């Protein structure tokens, strides 16, 4: 039940932080940790966010932080320039955009997962969206 609840969101979050071929290993690491520390993990308000940090810290790949592009065979639903724009963002900004808009996490959840303050999340997000808009040539939607 726990895995069913947490796994989809965790997989989604990690897929924006690691190359997709490393995500299964990272998921395994996270759930092994949860298993070992079940007494604590089950009491957590946001276990997915905590396990995201666990998976990050235990994924010692040098390729951490790389954002994979959309699956080539998928429908062209993602603006190609967005991939370049996202990859040009500083790592923290890219993570915040991914977790907030890609995964639907709250600022507080992202703050806990990235070990930054909620105000820093808001700042990163704001700056990232400005840069993405500039890169993509779009105006803020009022």
């Amino acid at each position, binding site marked *: 039940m726990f*895995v069913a609840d947490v*796994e*989809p969101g965790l*997989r*989604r979050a990690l*897929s*924006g932080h690691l190359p*997709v071929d490393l*995500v*299964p*290993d990272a*998921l*395994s*690491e996270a*759930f*092994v*940790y949860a*298993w*070992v*520390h079940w*007494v*604590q*993990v089950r009491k*957590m308000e*946001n276990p997915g*966010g*905590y396990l995201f940090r666990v998976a990050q810290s235990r994924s010692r790949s*040098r*390729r951490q932080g790389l954002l994979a592009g*959309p*699956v080539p065979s*998928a429908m*062209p*639903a*993602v*603006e*190609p320039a*967005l*991939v370049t724009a996202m990859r040009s963002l500083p790592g923290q900004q890219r993570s915040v*955009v*991914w977790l907030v*808009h*890609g*995964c639907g996490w709250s600022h*507080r959840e992202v*703050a806990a*997962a990235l*070990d930054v*303050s*909620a105000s*820093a999340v808001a700042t990163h997000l704001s700056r990232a*969206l400005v840069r*993405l*808009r500039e890169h*993509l*040539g*779009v*105006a*803020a*939607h009022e």
Partner: protein
Amino acid sequence: MSELERSSDDVTAAVRRWADDLADSVPPFQPDMLTGREPRPVSDHRRMLSVAAAVVVALAGVGGLVWVSSNRTADVVPIDSASLPVVDGALVSATATGDAATTGIEVTVEVPGQVLAGSRATIDVTIRNEGPDTVFWQAGGCAIPATVVVGPVGETDVYGPVRMSRDPVWDGDPATFATAVMSAGDMVGAQVAMPISMAGWADRACGANSAMEPLAPGEQLDYQATAEIRVPPGPLPGDGAYETVASFVGYLAVGDYPQQPLAPVEARVGLTIVGSPARSTVPVEAVTAPIVDDGRLTAWIPTTVIPGRPDLEQHYLVGLTWWRDGWELWVRPQWNGSEAMRVRVDPASLTVVDARIVHGGTAADDEPDAAVVPGGTPDEILTQPISPPEAGGGAGAGAGATATPSVVRAGEQITVAAHTGQICAGIALIYTVTADGTREAGLLLDDVSGSATWHTAPEGSPITIPPCQQVDQQSPATYIVPNLAPGNYQLCLTRESEACAPFEIIT
């Protein structure tokens, strides 16, 4: 711009679709992977990790205890599994407002309420002028508007580096090393947080000058700082009861600096340091003994003697702290202290896993969140000296690798494929081949970005290389040929001579 996105709302929607796309491309995790009923699609060492974790769970279930694996288990105190901490990510904040004497300056400091020992804490400080007068602040040097200190409650006025003792405490004698480390541990207390732009640095050289900036009524300054919550072996300092203090000093006029400051406005908020689950209570000697036994520290000590100055008897600042899930030792010579040795010890096996010289008071190059120093000197990673391959062994016929092309110019690409066996990940050694035999020319070392950088040793010195992590070569490795003199060389992908490819550099 395509037809797909025309507004920023569509940008965020596109990110979501992208996440949908990627998440769907990853196979869902199956819980029974943990039980071993199905083969796990992961590498061997990770499978071993799962098995080890399952054993730990079994032990916990039987005995209620989790033991930290160690080759010195007799020295290691077990941790009660029920007491393993959980870090609450909630933020806490405090605001202090100055009185009339400070013209209504308001300082707010915000930190996580709990911080895991050995991790970095981020501190947000806001300074707002709620008074009627413009207040000036000293913005020279690094333009740091507030001093931020993190430390045990009641000790935050003791500013000092937490990595190392504040005074030299070790004479370099291995016999006194453990005692010196214990003495240094008693000094681990508060530290001044660094600006985010200097994350990981031990020192900050911010010369104050007369550059003053105004803070007009209604305006605010935002400052983000970072502190390394390093703790020594043994109980947490202050039982983990820490506080963060942010202090702002303003001036009513530019000319008041530095003689006539306004009274400081100080905001103070408590936070709790919780012990890392992996941080067991080990005696200091259990950590210092393998460092001495390893030999790299003791081999480095004689190199720190100042030539021709017998009057400068060398002593060392030392510090052993828990940092990023392991024990980390820093040693800095009292004289010529521009370099420090950093040693990391794995807490489970109590073995040295990394030893390096770090230059200039910066973070080590492997510190993931550290600020990069422009033009900084790369760390010197210390390994046991290696012996070059025997003359001809690996070059010519029967070589264990092939270079393509085999005749190149400096700056051109060369691709090397190993024929058999395993290679060292991220390491390529180049040897000069002459009639007299081979000698080391240098080392191509993958950096964190995955590209290789060229390292050489001073003339006459053996080159040091990182430990070899053996892997199967998945695909031929491509390098930029370093700027070496024309001649015959061989490029080796192992520390021995099994995978060496001969090649020639021409003009």
